[in-house]
């Protein structure tokens, strides 16, 4: 052994002694702490724990309720009874379940589920056997309690959506916390681990979970040796979740939903003054109550298998080429750039040839000489091709963004889509190819890469109608505290240009040659202005073109055009802006405009409009339709304010 080694060893031993000493000191500290907790402080705990044991149980808070703008309940909590079993108390669980099924009728499926759940969960945790049990069954269980050890009836709150399927896509639904949910939450609060505690899964229920959930309370209870609660010592009340008031008008929403029934369609109504989303309907819809109770596989398959996609929230999630409803953007861009005067005319021969490719107008014979107003009124495509070539895609996209297209609006619904206003840079990044002039031509009439959701179209229309940057608002107030309205500030645009656009949109509906003339409102103070849109979902092949345009009715449903319509009314003092999209509905003027007109009138009259608002020719048909819709919603007139 060298002296160096010896020195090393000495040093190691010395340091070991120091570190060991520190460890010993710490262990001494641990022992002292243990003594303090278990010997000195023990009396305090032992007193409480002498005969019975003290337990802290969490009290789940009552979830906040949701109301519409007039105070109609949209989501509420109702007491529900369930039967639970604690295997530790029950002993032989199979025997206990068998005894229980002699007392109340239980379906074999839930018995099977209970058995498998009992195997998986800890012995002292309650497992739910049956939910939504009738009061009679609960009393039967209570009467037979001595024979049914370990089985107890429990009362809880369960979520009910009294408006049924009307607001499914807006409200969403709640459901029990899943393992997947837990894995996504950092440090979940103990409350979430209560079996079957319900949290929002979709829609406002999910997006406003924090407000709606509230804070857990706690009670201290004495439990006997088997864990049964003997007595409550004290309780600290939790905080109920905050109530939320939506800007939705339940009556109008119900009407819109009924009016869209049978189509794969959506409609959005925005209050031009405040940006309030008064109606946000997406058809077909589903019953959120089914999801709260746990939807059966058969029902779920039915929903997912439907080609009309009932689970999709089309108002915010659905993206469509805006078609001719986009022409206002192209025109505004050109007007703001000072490139055209409204009286400037262009000649429409039925097509425009751009770098060797022919771009057709929807009207093959052409519109002849048209100015701004006539081109919008008759929805001439060539006029806008021409404008777009002058303005360029960048200015058009900028204008569209100013009107809220291509922007994810801040609305607490699930899967709010951003849409798309293409630019040269975007195409280079997304496709790696250069922007070609044909892309601009397509974009000018809202085709090609351009995509917008019905909500975005409604916001665009509201901004056109008011000249302000109206922001959509879905939440009116949370816990009584009003959300700021989305009135917006004046857009940096020439008011004169906006007036010209509105005048042209007025002509679309009210001029004899306008594309939406058939869907006009004749009540003078309620006349609307709007724009039709028909967006292509397929490419027309050369063969098809040669054989002449095939009518939509001859095509399979999924290849037909989307029908769109946007409008605002009254035209001189805009109150509501409406956007309607009927998926594969055919033409905007025939499929979407009548729906939009009906919904607009319903909103303006705050209920069923009188027949004299409609052109005399249509009245018999409208009368029949109104009758049919009334029958579809028998509660429509009674579900008003008295329910709140």
């Amino acid at each position, binding site marked *: 052994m060298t002296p160096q080694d010896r020195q090393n060893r000495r040093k*190691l031993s010395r340091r070991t002694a120091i570190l*060991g000493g520190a*460890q010993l000191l710490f262990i001494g500290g641990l*022992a002292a702490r243990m003594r303090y907790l278990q*010997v000195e402080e023990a009396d305090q705990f032992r007193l409480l724990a002498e005969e019975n044991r003290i*337990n802290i*149980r969490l009290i789940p808070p009552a979830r906040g309720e949701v109301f519409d703008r007039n105070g109609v309940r949209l989501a509420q909590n109702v007491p529900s009874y369930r039967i639970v079993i604690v295997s530790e108390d029950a002993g032989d669980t199979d025997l206990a379940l068998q005894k229980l099924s002699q007392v109340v009728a239980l379906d074999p499926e839930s018995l099977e589920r209970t058995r498998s759940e009992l195997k998986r969960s800890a012995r002292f945790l309650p497992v739910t056997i049956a939910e939504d049990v009738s009061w009679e069954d609960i009393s039967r269980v209570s009467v037979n309690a001595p024979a049914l050890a370990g089985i107890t009836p429990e009362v809880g709150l369960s979520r009910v959506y009294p408006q049924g399927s009307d607001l499914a896509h807006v409200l969403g639904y709640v459901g029990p916390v899943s393992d997947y949910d837990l894995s996504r939450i*950092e440090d979940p609060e*103990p*409350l979430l681990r209560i079996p079957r505690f319900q949290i929002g899964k979709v829609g406002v229920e999910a997006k406003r979970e924090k407000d709606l959930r509230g804070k857990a309370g706690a009670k201290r209870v004495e439990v006997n040796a088997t864990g049964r609660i003997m007595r409550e010592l004290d309780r600290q009340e939790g905080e109920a979740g905050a109530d939320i008031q939506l800007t939705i008008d339940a009556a109008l929403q119900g009407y819109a939903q009924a009016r869209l029934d049978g189509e794969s369609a959506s409609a959005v109504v925005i209050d031009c003054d405040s940006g309030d989303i008064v109606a946000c309907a997406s058809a077909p819809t589903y019953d959120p109550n089914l999801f709260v109770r746990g939807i059966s596989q058969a029902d779920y398959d039915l929903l997912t298998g439907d080609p009309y996609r009932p689970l999709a929230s089309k108002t915010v999630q659905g993206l469509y080429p805006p078609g001719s409803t986009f022409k206002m953007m192209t025109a505004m861009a050109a007007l703001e750039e000072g490139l055209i005067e409204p009286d400037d005319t262009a000649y429409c021969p039925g097509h425009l040839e751009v770098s060797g490719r022919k771009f057709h107008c929807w009207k093959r014979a052409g519109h002849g000489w048209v100015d701004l107003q006539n081109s919008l009124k008759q929805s001439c495509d060539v006029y806008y091709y021409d404008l777009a070539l002058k303005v360029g895609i960048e200015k058009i996209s900028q204008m569209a963004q100013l009107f809220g297209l291509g922007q994810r609006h801040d609305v607490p619904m699930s899967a709010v889509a951003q849409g798309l206003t293409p630019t040269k840079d975007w195409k280079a990044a997304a496709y790696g190819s250069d922007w070609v002039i044909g892309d601009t031509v397509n974009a000018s009439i809202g085709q090609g890469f351009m995509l917008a959701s019905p909500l975005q179209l409604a916001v665009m229309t509201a901004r056109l109608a008011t000249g302000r940057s109206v922001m959509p608002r879905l939440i009116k107030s949370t816990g009584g505290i009003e959300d700021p309205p989305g009135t917006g500030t004046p857009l940096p645009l020439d008011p004169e240009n906006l007036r010209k656009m509105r005048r042209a949109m007025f002509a679309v509906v009210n001029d004899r040659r306008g594309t939406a003339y058939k869907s006009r409102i004749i009540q003078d103070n309620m006349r609307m202005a709007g724009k039709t849109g028909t967006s292509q979902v397929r490419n027309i092949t050369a063969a098809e073109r040669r054989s002449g345009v095939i009518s939509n009715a001859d095509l399979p449903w999924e290849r037909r055009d989307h029908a769109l319509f946007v409008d605002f009314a009254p035209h001189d003092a805009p109150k509501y802006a409406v956007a309607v999209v009927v998926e594969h509905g055919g033409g905007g003027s025939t499929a979407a405009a009548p729906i939009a007109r009906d919904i607009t009138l319903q909103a303006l009259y705050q209920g069923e409009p009188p027949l004299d608002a409609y052109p005399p020719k249509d009245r018999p048909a409208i009368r029949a339709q109104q009758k049919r819709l009334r029958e579809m919603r028998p509660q429509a007139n009674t579900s008003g304010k008295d329910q709140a």
Partner: protein
Amino acid sequence: MSYLEHSIKAIPTGPRKILYLNWPLALLLAAVSSVGFLMLISVSGGSLRPWAEPQIKRFVVGFALMIGLAMVPIWFWRSVSGLAYLGTLLLLVTVELFGEVGKGAQRWIDLGPLRLQPSELMKITLVMFLAAYYDWLPAPRTSRPLWVLLPVGIIMLPVALVLRQPDLGTSLLLVAAGGGIMFLAGVHWAYFASVLTAGIGLVSAVFQSRGTAWQLLKDYQYRRIDTFLDPGSDPLGAGYHITQSKIALGSGGWTGRGFMQGTQSRLNFLPEKHTDFIFTTLAEEFGFIGGISLLGLYLLIILFCVWSALLNKDRFAALLTLGISLNFFLFFSVNMSMVMGMAPVVGVPLPLVSYGGSAMLVLMVAFGLLQSAHVHRPR
């Protein structure tokens, strides 16, 4: 000091090695593990399932593994320590890329029956590598800045990866264990003093940064520190665990309620009562006597390790043994402090007692290395 200078003949060979194991230590490990089995049976209400049975199987496998590793000469372990360190580092990176996400943190690699937690393994391989480093490093260089920076880098690399998972508890343990080896190896006092000062600075920075854009910890970690400092502030939220665990402990008293009679910890809503909070069950059911006995067993394990290290004339073996015992000490002391409300809840299991395969196996592997050092010590 190298093995070549000792008489290798004095070191036992072949199956006879088994007789030269540190048997008292092995028995102590078995005793502590048995306490664990007992508690797991109690927590599951008197049943071997779902926790006690797999834990017993793991212990048997772990024990066999320990004996197997002890048969391999310690100089072999020294020669592979660099590889082991690099391999674990690679696993940590893999977890970063493909790991499974559990409780908001990414820690595991799923290997079918076993969930491998590379950060657990790192506690051992880091100690191994540092011990080999100081065995190799000529003593006069120990305190030279460059030769101090190198091990600091060796420690900080895995610490940074573990922090990213994020697992604050384990990364602090790694720092403590690595720093411990450096201290034992004889690095100059001044380094530790300056690190301590910097540490205090860092802690104040962590608190200063709260709420600003560059805040250093996650929100929930701040909340845990808050509730640690004042558990009463949020008795139903984050402070719930600590309050509950103190009530359970306190109601145990001197002798406890008796086996399987503890109701606080069984009926209460302690989600991790079979893992991190298992000590509460023990303390409630067997009282102060039970708690102090387990602490005594742990102390004995540490003492046997230190004794074995002081016996060992080989520098690598001694440092490895001390490092592993230090790790073991950190494990149980941090867990017990946490359960008794003396440290924030950081998620460190009670060694050999808490339910968990990865931790148990890694510990037994560590003790296997320790036994190998003991068996093959120069005589």
